[in-house]
């Protein structure tokens, strides 16, 4: 089993999902996100923000590989700024009866080229995460807005329960750089102190559309 992620420009998510379904995928979930690009002129005019969509799908490894390859062609991931795709090993999929259980991951026996670094921080800190990561060699990241609370964080305002807003930063990094990047984020954002966020690291099986 695999989970595949596509990160594409805003508005392409539904189209991509439709194509994926034609290729045999059972379904998918689209998240709205935004990313940044490195360009000092655009930064000067504050135009460096890009709206993105993340499409998540899960399925058997062979199917996923095929879908990823085909979609990468259709949406021209080989050209810069046209989007990226990557896949993660998956332990189990529930809710889709037609996919049989599979043993966890045969395919990641050889060590992965890339790692996905998922950093969850308080709202407003995502840019700091990306800045820190870029200093350590990352090539940008994608930000998703979220909401949630650690055990000690929920509070009440008048009659409403409050969950603080969060930002989720997804960064793909080469395995040999990942350590530095994670370390940079950890020190820069003081992740090790309680309440400042968490970092999740996963091994990536395959990638499309990433250039050095």
């Amino acid at each position, binding site marked *: 089993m695999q989970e595949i992620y596509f990160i594409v*420009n*805003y508005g392409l*998510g*539904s189209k991509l999902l439709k194509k994926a379904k034609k290729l045999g995928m059972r379904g998918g979930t*689209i*998240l*709205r996100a935004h990313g940044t690009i490195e360009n000092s002129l*655009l930064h000067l*005019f*504050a*135009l460096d*923000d*890009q*709206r993105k969509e993340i499409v998540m799908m899960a399925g058997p490894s062979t199917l996923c590989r095929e879908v990823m390859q085909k979609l990468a062609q259709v949406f021209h991931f080989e050209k810069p700024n046209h989007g990226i795709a990557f896949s993660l090993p998956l332990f189990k999929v529930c809710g889709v009866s037609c996919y049989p259980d599979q043993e966890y991951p045969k395919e990641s026996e050889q060590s992965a080229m890339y790692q996905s670094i998922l950093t969850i921080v308080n709202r*407003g800190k995502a*840019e700091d995460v990306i800045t820190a990561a870029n200093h350590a060699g990352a090539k940008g990241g994608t930000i998703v807005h979220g*909401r949630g609370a650690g055990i000690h964080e*929920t509070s009440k*305002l*008048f*009659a*409403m*329960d*409050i*969950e*603080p*807003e969060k930002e989720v930063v997804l960064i793909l990094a080469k395995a040999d750089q990942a350590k530095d990047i994670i370390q940079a984020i950890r020190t820069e954002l003081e992740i090790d102190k309680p309440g400042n966020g968490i970092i999740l690291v996963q091994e990536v099986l395959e990638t499309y559309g990433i250039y050095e």
Partner: protein
Amino acid sequence: MQVLQAKFKEVFFSVLPITLIVILLHLTISPVPGAVLWRFLIGEMFVVIGLTLFLIGVDLAIHPLGDLTGTFLAKTNKLWTVLLRGIIVGFFICAAEPDLIVLANQIEQVTQKMMASTTLLMSVSLGLAVMLAIGFLRIFYNFPLYKLLLGIYGLIFLLSIPTNPAFLAMAFDASGSTTGVLAVPFILALSVGISKLKKDSKASEKDSFGLVAIASSGAILAVLLLHLLSPKNELATPVFELASDNQAIWSHFAHLLFHSIKEGTISVLPLFLIFVVLQLISFRLKKREVYRMFIGFGYVHIGLIIFLLGVSGGLMDIGGLIGHQLASFDSKTWILAVGLILGVATILSEPAVYVLTDQIEEVTSGYIQRKAILASLAVGVGLAVFLSVLRVLVPQIQLWHYLLPGYLLALGLMFFTPKMFIGMAFDAGGVATGPMTATFILAFIQGAADKIESANLIIDGFGMIALVALMPIIMLELLGVLFKLKNKREGI
């Protein structure tokens, strides 16, 4: 760059229909003088450029500011502090609304100074501010929106019984004017800012909307109360000036530039001050974020000036001329049909409409698509303009003949449409009445009213905005009913 490109494309294609329609009219039934047409085309170009910059700025500065201010208001957890802060912020953004200042001056004029413009301005701002604070409390205490709206509109109906019809029109127009081009994005962001903190995401979706509606109802209440306290029933007729075609094209714009700069600056200033003050006492954003906000405010300011220049320099005259010409035809079918089409096309280039549709997409994660909202809004406004033209043509139709059944329908539909659509629908009412309607369509109606003998310029002119605020509510609620039916059919 992608941001700029995408926004420009979006704006360009939504301004295109109205431009094509006017050119088509020019070539067929309603030729206008060359200078007026050129001014219109240049004006539309300004509108495209201005709107693009303005919308980028809204994303960069106004949205985050609304968000942050919402959290700032909520954070104290003390009832009185929230009320007080809400009132101060509300008063501040409303008192500087250029549309409202214009309306207040008009009202002072037609009431022969019995209702001073400053009194009106102050009371409307206060009304809006109080209702804004009440709207906050509604979100905090999870009080259902439809109950609050029922209460508010019940009160409005009671107050409007002893009111002179002309004032009724002014009151409803005032509510349309208060929710101007900057207030709407800000108030929308405020409510989203507060309600998205909520743990219950279903409630958070619902509560993201409705604040604009509640706030703008404060303006109606204020004018009605003011009228009740100082009744004055005689009204003077203002003079309507038709466009002259002998003015040179560029000097015409140069002439209006100063005015646009002033208006744009007055609109942006209060929000900018709110940002500076709150940044110093509460936000404490980092340097990079402050920089982005400043740049964003720059975009908003420049964009707004260019947009206003385009609208006042290019669109107002041609609207009046077309209305005037079409009304002089023997067959009245033309003006009714053109009114409908103009209404549909104009709403697409209304700045606040983008902000609302964006917000709706954002909050529902794209489930309710912008196209669906835009289509219902356009149909609603088209119908509103159609009905307004009909009212100009048929003197027997009074404004309340539309408003009473219209609002009864709007309130009744609240019980059938999904709860989330209620807030969106009533907000859309305030959103639809922006600078495009207030200039282009208003001039069109006034031009027509000027030609038709039986029509009264004030009464007919004023009520149009009230209708444009009403029809989108009904249409969006109907859209909600449709969504509900569709979901049921699919069995999810």
